[in-house]
């Protein structure tokens, strides 16, 4: 059984290499099963893959950038090719970003691809997450992967924020200042955490070095580690699938891992690189040389964070000036919108699988994805939640919108303060009604057909089997 590598190699190098490996690692035994592993192939299952590929692009371009970036706030005199900053005292960090942009061949392209990849990365994560949410793919046994996924989203926020802050241009410093203020407002640990993080009072001298290590080491390590777990669990639990005549809760119907799924993924990976390079080359992003270096006493309007932080910015702009002192302790006005509310939102998101179980009492094992219309309450709640975040997100650009629409700035804010309550309820209710309406018409037609209304999909036999275990 083990002497196969002594046979004369009749194949090419690949085959002899495979033989060599197998005789040391015993791969053929399990590998044969894996080559034909079934992958449900619906196109919406590829969102997560795009996120993964963006991460790969980020790691590669980021490594290139890290070879040039200098995380140092010490001042140097700029003498590079960019005229309007020549002779200006700027931080070594900003200087290195300018050098990377103007003097390193392909450096600007790498910087832009990296930034665009970050924006698309979070977009892909969010859409992937919405797919999982609305199809109920987070239900038992996949709660763990839901939690890991949400943690990945948080890490992506962290990676984005630290990266946004590194160039030490005027925009990045403004974002950092707001983050620091939110930290200072946190009860008990706030001021200490702020000082420890920055190595002293704002702006501090150590902050760029700290952010840099977080951005290039700690957070990527966390991302890669959690992605590994995410994939390992996926491999163990296998994909969910859309119910059909063939696909049931007790099987997996899909394309084989090799060659089909491998080639699809590889193709998508290459397309991800291609598209990110295209926008990286054709669209200017974060032209820091126009913003100038960060000075703590300078600022500009409009100052927005990258899109995925827009909802936090919007919360800060919408929240009323509530600052109170209880028992001699001040609760700063930023604390609730910048710390408490986002914390609450993410707690709900993390806990959603358990919240839903509490409501439905459904603890059975599910491997079939649901149609959103078949679960009207969840769909309504989801649409309402998204609407809420979208309104808040829009509020993050209230000054730009006010200028573009010709509406007053305070009027815009006040209208959004109303919409933030009205629209989520309205859209959530509409989604709920629409789901009910769709199943109402569809339920009659499909009642006799094998796919059936998937709301009745929890498999009784399976549930019974589960019951014996627990």
């Amino acid at each position, binding site marked *: 059984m083990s002497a196969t590598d002594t046979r004369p190699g009749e194949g090419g190098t690949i085959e002899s290499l495979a033989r060599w490996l197998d005789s040391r690692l015993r791969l053929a035994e399990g590998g044969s099963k894996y080559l034909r592993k079934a992958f449900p192939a619906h196109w919406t299952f590829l969102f997560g893959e795009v996120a993964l590929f963006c991460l790969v692009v980020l790691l590669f371009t980021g490594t290139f950038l890290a070879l040039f970036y200098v995380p140092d706030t010490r001042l140097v005199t700029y003498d590079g090719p960019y005229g309007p900053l020549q002779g200006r005292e700027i931080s070594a960090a900003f200087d290195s970003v300018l050098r990377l942009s103007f003097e390193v061949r392909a450096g600007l392209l790498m910087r832009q691809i990296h930034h665009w990849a970050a924006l698309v990365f979070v977009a892909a994560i969010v859409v992937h997450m919405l797919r999982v949410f609305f199809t109920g793919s987070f239900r038992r046994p996949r709660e763990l992967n839901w939690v890991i996924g949400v943690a990945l989203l948080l890490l992506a926020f962290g990676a984005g924020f630290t990266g946004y802050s590194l160039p030490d241009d005027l925009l990045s410093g403004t974002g950092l200042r707001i983050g620091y203020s939110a930290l200072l407002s946190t009860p008990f640990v706030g001021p200490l955490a702020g000082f420890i993080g920055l*190595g002293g009072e704002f702006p501090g001298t150590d902050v760029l070095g700290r952010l840099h290590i977080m951005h290039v080491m700690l957070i990527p390590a966390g991302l890669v580690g959690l992605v590994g777990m995410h994939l390992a669990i996926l491999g163990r639990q*296998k994909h969910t699938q859309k119910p059909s005549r063939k696909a049931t809760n007790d099987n997996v119907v*899909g394309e084989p891992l090799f060659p*089909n799924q491998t*080639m699809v993924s590889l193709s*998508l990976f290459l397309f991800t690189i291609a598209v990110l390079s295209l926008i990286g080359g054709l669209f200017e992003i974060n032209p820091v040389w126009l913003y100038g270096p960060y000075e*703590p006493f300078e600022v500009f309007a409009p100052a927005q964070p990258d899109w995925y932080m827009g909802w936090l910015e919007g919360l800060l702009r919408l929240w009323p000036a509530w600052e109170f002192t209880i028992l001699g302790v001040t609760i700063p006005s930023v604390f609730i919108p910048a710390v408490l509310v986002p914390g609450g939102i993410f707690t709900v998101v993390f806990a959603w699988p358990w919240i839903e179980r509490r409501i439905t009492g459904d603890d059975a094992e599910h491997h079939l994805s649901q149609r959103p219309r078949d679960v009207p309450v969840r769909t309504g709640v989801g649409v309402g939640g998204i609407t809420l975040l979208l309104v808040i997100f829009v509020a993050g650009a209230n000054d730009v919108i006010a200028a573009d629409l010709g509406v007053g700035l305070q009027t815009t804010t006040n209208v959004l303060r109303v919409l933030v309550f009205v629209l989520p309820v309205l859209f959530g209710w509409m989604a709920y009604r629409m789901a009910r309406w769709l199943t109402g018409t569809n339920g009659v037609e499909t009642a006799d057909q094998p796919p059936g209304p998937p709301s009745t999909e929890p498999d009784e036999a399976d549930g019974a089997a*589960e019951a014996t275990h627990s």
Partner: protein
Amino acid sequence: MAEPRRRSRTDAPLSQQQADWQARSDRERRGTRWVAVSLLAAIAAGIGLLVLYVQGGQTQAEGVLIFLAFGSVGLALGIWVRVVIGPDEVVEPRYPMASTDEERSTFSEVYERAVDDIGGGTRRRFLGRLLAAAAATLGLAIAFPLRSLGPGPAAELFRTAWRPGARLVDLEGHPIRLADVAVDQAITVFPEHAPRSADSQAFLIGTRSDAVVVDELPEQTAPGTVCYSKICTHAGCPVGLYRAQAGELLCPCHQSTFDVNRGAAVKSGPAGRPLPQLPITVDEEGFLVALGDFAEPVGPSFWNMTRDVPAESADGDEVGE
């Protein structure tokens, strides 16, 4: 055992695929042609990229060529798998994720036996607790160096570099005479001895005559001027936007609006308290000077802001800088 299985695995799908290929030979031939064309395009784009790089590079052309190079290979693989190979389907059984009762009880048995080997009864429990305590202590000890990352906040958050007699200087470090402050002018000022200091930045504003309704520090303001901290009390952005006609300072980050003529009270927006006012006067040479530090902490409100200022600040040291 491995041998027959491998043979059966490779043979069956191959013949299936070959049957498929014959049935769709036309499609396959067309697909193959396009795969080849795409790969050739990728080679061309790759060579172009090389040439471009050697020639000195150009960001837009680089982006487009990488797009063409990678996109072409992606396209080739896509056509290959979707047109040439075509759809394929595997059905696998799926079993409940949980182990069976039998497996679980076997595991428990093995585990219990192993635990018994460690030691029995009270001795084990005692040692186990001691081990946990040791781990916790070590964990704490390991976490402690975190504290080395920076000093704890003492008086810095409560004080700035302003002190009695400090001249107001502009960004370039020039001291400012009262006569220099025009109506509707807003000048970013710093203490003379701490130019460009982040927490001491203040806005010196030339007010319109008789516009000031409420003066927080009536005896401590040079005529026709007011001076406020330039750091927003909300999230700490510089309140850099002066709406002269309305006498309002607006923070560009979250639009907190402060009424310059009413002690920088919050008119609208999310800030929770007014901008602290700097007491100023005019010295014998006509220059503006500070009478002391701000009465309250500048910048965003922070946790425990209302407690007493830490003792270190009482000796008048410049803890702020």
